[in-house]
Each structure stands twice: as C-alpha cells, then as structure tokens.
C-alpha cells in the first residue's frame, strides 16, 4: 500500500524536520559547551566544531558542587511532587464533582496565586517564612512551589476527572466503598495521563525554579541547580562554557523522569474504562 507508506515517510520527515528546527538551540548549547571558552565567536559558525574540549564538563564535574546541587534539587522536587500532586488531585476532584457555592470560586481563587510578578511577592514571602522559622529550610521551597503548581494541577486534573463518568464511582460505592476510596481506586487510575502531565509540570517548574530558591535559602550547601548555574556568572566575567555544560548536565534528570512518565501519556489507559 504505497499511499500508507508515503504517509509514513511524510510523517517521519515532518517529525525530524520539526525536531531539527526546535532543537537547534539545544544543539548549539551542546556545541558551545564542548568548544574552548575563548572561541565562541568564530565566524562562519562551526556547526561541527573542530577544536573539541571537554574542559568545561570536567571543570563542572570536578571543581564545582554540581552533585550537591543535584541532590538538593532532587529533594525539593521530590517533596514538592509528593505534596503538590495529591493536593491538586483532591482539589481537582472537588471542582469536578461538586458544584456547590464556593467550589468554583475556590478554583478561581487558586489561580490568583499566579497573577503577581515575583518582584512584588518576594519580600512578603520572605517575611512569612521568616516568621514560620523556615528560612534556610527546604520546606519553605516545597510550600512556595506547591502554591504555584496546585492552581494549574487542580484545573488540569478537573478536566481529566470530568471525562470520567460518575457511574463508575457510584458503582464502586454501591459495593460498599466510601466515596474517597472510590476516588482513589477508580478515578485515579483512569486519570494517569493527567497525573503524569501534572507530575511533569511540577517537576519541571520546581527543578528550574530560581527566585525562591535563591532568596529563601542561603549557602552553597543548600543550592539547587539554577543557583549553582547562576554562580558561574561573575560580576565581570561570564564563564560561558561552564554554564552551558552545567545546564546540559542539569537537564538530564528531568529528561529521565519524563522518559519514565511518557509511557502514561498513552491512550487506552484512560479511555479503557469508559467502554460500556
């Protein structure tokens, strides 16, 4: 069937072309990281650089504390996911199943968390966390990040829960399970794509978060990745290749997480339960 084969070839071509265009800056980051730091401006640009050096990676891996940064970022991200995703799921479920007064309003209220620029938030937030004694404590980062993730997570999951018929929960409840267990045992497994997407979103946001991580926490032992990367930017010097190398390394764990969660972004897990 030549038509189908043509379609497949076109599809592959389109995918590859899209990847090439969209990922070109990423490729350029890689090239910048493996070129000597004093050769950024060679012209014409070398798409396949001649002088390759892994000095920048070595400097980052050996002389900086990148593993500490990884560890800290992982701790903050893991705890944020553990808090933010369930909280979002609960809220999203309420918004989906209950149309009482206050439920929809609460949903809109959640979104206000994302409406003010960081510049206006940072002093009051610092003061709040100082009052709570949480300055220099990762708990403050977990709370702050959760605040910004829950609004999106709740609405996103509301949409997913909306697509799951209530009959399924009612059926489970008739069998004797409580409403909450029906939620956990029936609805949640059917919403895996939505949960996966929310988890990814949470991970990406927390992993790359700078403003709170820089203000609420001090000291190199508590740096997360973005702060560590920023430290290569000195007052009068920009350690260019190190920044690119560190960023590339830093991106890897999140990509691995995404690769793991990608399998849940598959049709059939959700729709499977809808068949009558």
């Amino acid at each position, binding site marked *: 069937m030549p038509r189908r084969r043509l379609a497949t070839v076109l599809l592959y071509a389109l995918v590859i072309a899209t990847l090439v265009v969209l990922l070109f800056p990423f490729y350029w980051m890689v090239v910048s990281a493996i070129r000597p730091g004093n050769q950024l401006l060679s012209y014409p640009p070398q798409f396949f650089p001649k002088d390759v050096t892994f000095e920048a990676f070595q400097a980052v891996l050996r002389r900086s504390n990148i593993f500490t940064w990884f560890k800290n970022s992982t701790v903050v991200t893991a705890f944020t996911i553990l808090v933010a995703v369930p909280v979002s799921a609960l809220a999203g479920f309420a918004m989906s199943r209950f149309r*009482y007064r206050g439920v929809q309003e609460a949903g809109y209220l959640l979104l206000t968390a994302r409406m003010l620029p960081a510049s206006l938030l940072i002093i*009051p937030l610092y003061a709040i966390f100082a009052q709570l004694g949480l300055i220099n404590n990762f708990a403050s980062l977990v709370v702050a990040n959760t605040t910004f993730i829950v609004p999106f997570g709740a609405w996103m999951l509301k*949409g997913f829960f909306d697509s799951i018929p209530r009959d399924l929960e009612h059926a489970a409840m008739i069998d004797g399970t409580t409403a909450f267990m029906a939620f956990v045992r029936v609805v949640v497994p059917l919403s895996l794509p939505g949960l996966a997407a929310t988890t990814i979103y949470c991970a990406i946001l927390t992993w790359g978060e*700078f403003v709170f991580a820089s203000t609420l926490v001090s000291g190199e032992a508590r740096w997360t990745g*973005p702060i560590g990367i920023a430290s290569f930017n000195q007052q009068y010097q920009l350690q260019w290749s190190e920044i690119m190398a560190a960023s590339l390394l830093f991106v890897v764990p999140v990509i691995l997480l995404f690769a793991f969660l990608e399998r849940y972004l598959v*049709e059939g897990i959700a729709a499977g339960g809808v068949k009558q």
Partner: protein
Amino acid sequence: MTTAQTVPRAPRRRRFSRSALRNRLYAYALLAPAVVVVLLVIVYPLVMAARLSLHDVGIFRVDRGLTGEMSFDNYEAMFRSRAFWKSLRITLYYVFFGVLGSFAVGLFTAVLLNQPFRGRGLARVLMVLPWPVPGVVAATMFTWIFNSSFGVLNYLLLKSGIVAQPVQWFTKPVPALVAVLVATIWKGYPFFTISILAGMQSIPKELYEAARVDGAGPIQQFRFITIPALRSVIGISLVVATLWQFRVFDIIFVMTGGGPTGATETLAIQIYREAFQYFEMSYAAAVGMVTLALSVISTFFYLRLTSRSFY
C-alpha cells in the same frame, strides 16, 4: 454507550438533609489543603501589594508596615506616565503573540506526537527538551544565536539569501521584540505539547472510528472531535500560559534588559525596575495591580470561552 452529562445540581429535596451537608463538607475538605496552602502563602502578599499601591513607600519594610494616608497618587502617576502606556502596549503584544506562538507550536507537535510511529517515545522526550532549560541559560544562548555580527541566525539568513544585510536584532525595536518572542516561545511550547498530548489520551478511539465510518476526513475529525474534546485542557493551558507570560522576567531581562528604548520593556520588567532598582515599591505595586487585573480578565475570558464540557 453512555457518557456522563454535565453534572446535575444537588437535587432540591435533599438540600437540607444530613447527607447533603456531609457532601458539602466532603467537597470542602477535598479543597481544603489546596486552598489553605495557596491562601496562606498568597493572601498576605496580595493584600500587602494592594495596600502598598495606595501608600507612598520606597521599600516595603516589614518592621514598619504601612502607615500614612492612603491615596491613589501612584495610580494617577502611572496613568499619566508615557512609559507605562508604552509598556502596557508592549506587554499586550508580547503576551498575545507569545501565547499564540507557544500554543500553535505546542498543538502542532502534540498532534504529531500522537500519531503512532516507531521511536515515538524518543521523539516525545526530545521534543520537550527546551522546557527544563533554565530561562537565564536559554536567554544567554539566544543572545549569541541572534548576535548581529557573529550569530548563527544571521549567518543562515544571509547564506540563504533571505536578507541582504545582517539583521540588527538587538538595536532595533521590532527585531528585538521578535528575538525575545522566539526565545519565549521556545521555552513555552513544551508546556502545551505535554498538556495537549495528555488531553488527547482521554479521547476515546471509538469516536474517531465512528467518524471515519461516517466519511469524515482527518481534518474534519480534528475540527469536530479533537479540538472540542480538548476544550478544557486548552482552556486551562491558555490561562496558565498567559499568566506565566505576563510575569516572564529572566528571558527578557537577560536578552535585552527591556530595550532598546523600552521596546521590550513589559510590565514585569518595569515592576522589577521600579521595585528593586529605583526602590519605588508602591509605584511598582500599582503597576502590579494592573498586571493582576489583566490576568483576571484573561483568565475569565479563556475559561468562559472553553468551559462548555465535551463529555
């Protein structure tokens, strides 16, 4: 085959019974953690920002609080400021084209990545690589890509004959805005890709099969099944992306600092400047209130537009 209709309101006759009350409490209990966390962290700053905008304070000092008369002086000054209106205009362009661009690229890539093909998993992972790159790093990267003398973009544009002279990306207003938009869209599209891709998984295959049996082509399937089914996902994604876009700071600040001559100075940049460079935090708060208002308006707009449930 039954699908749930829009959720019915709580039946009248049960309104005052105990189980209705328990239902309500259950609903509020589910919402409570989210609301508590968010309010705890956000209410104080929001209220402080609103009050701050009505006073005349250079730096908001927690030990002193806000004293003195309240007035609308900051708002007056703001509405009379040429820089403010210019910044507002730039912000609207930036948000509109940034969200539109990210959405378009995100939708396109999501559709692409929803097709079955070998290596799809890898393609999906690769497609969202821009997302976890720190904004500052991406901005620095794009600054060099867009460099007028040695940047690879001008090299490609010149070589392919699209332009005759190197484009002065950062010294002319419109190219600077374009450069900043490109960097923003690059960082912003994977969010749409993932959200839409996830949303697409909830669309039952049967609907497409039924449509195909009825003779609908792929474009019609897309228009009449995919898009409507994705309404709520698209809606919330547009909202969140717009809210993010209003607040973007790093990318613009690193690439252009808000210039040239204010061509890329969005409200977020202006707020930072006024708050942390000129130390006029009351004025910055007033501008912040405008951003808040715009955010509220766009949120309602998008949510109303996409609120009709598909299922």
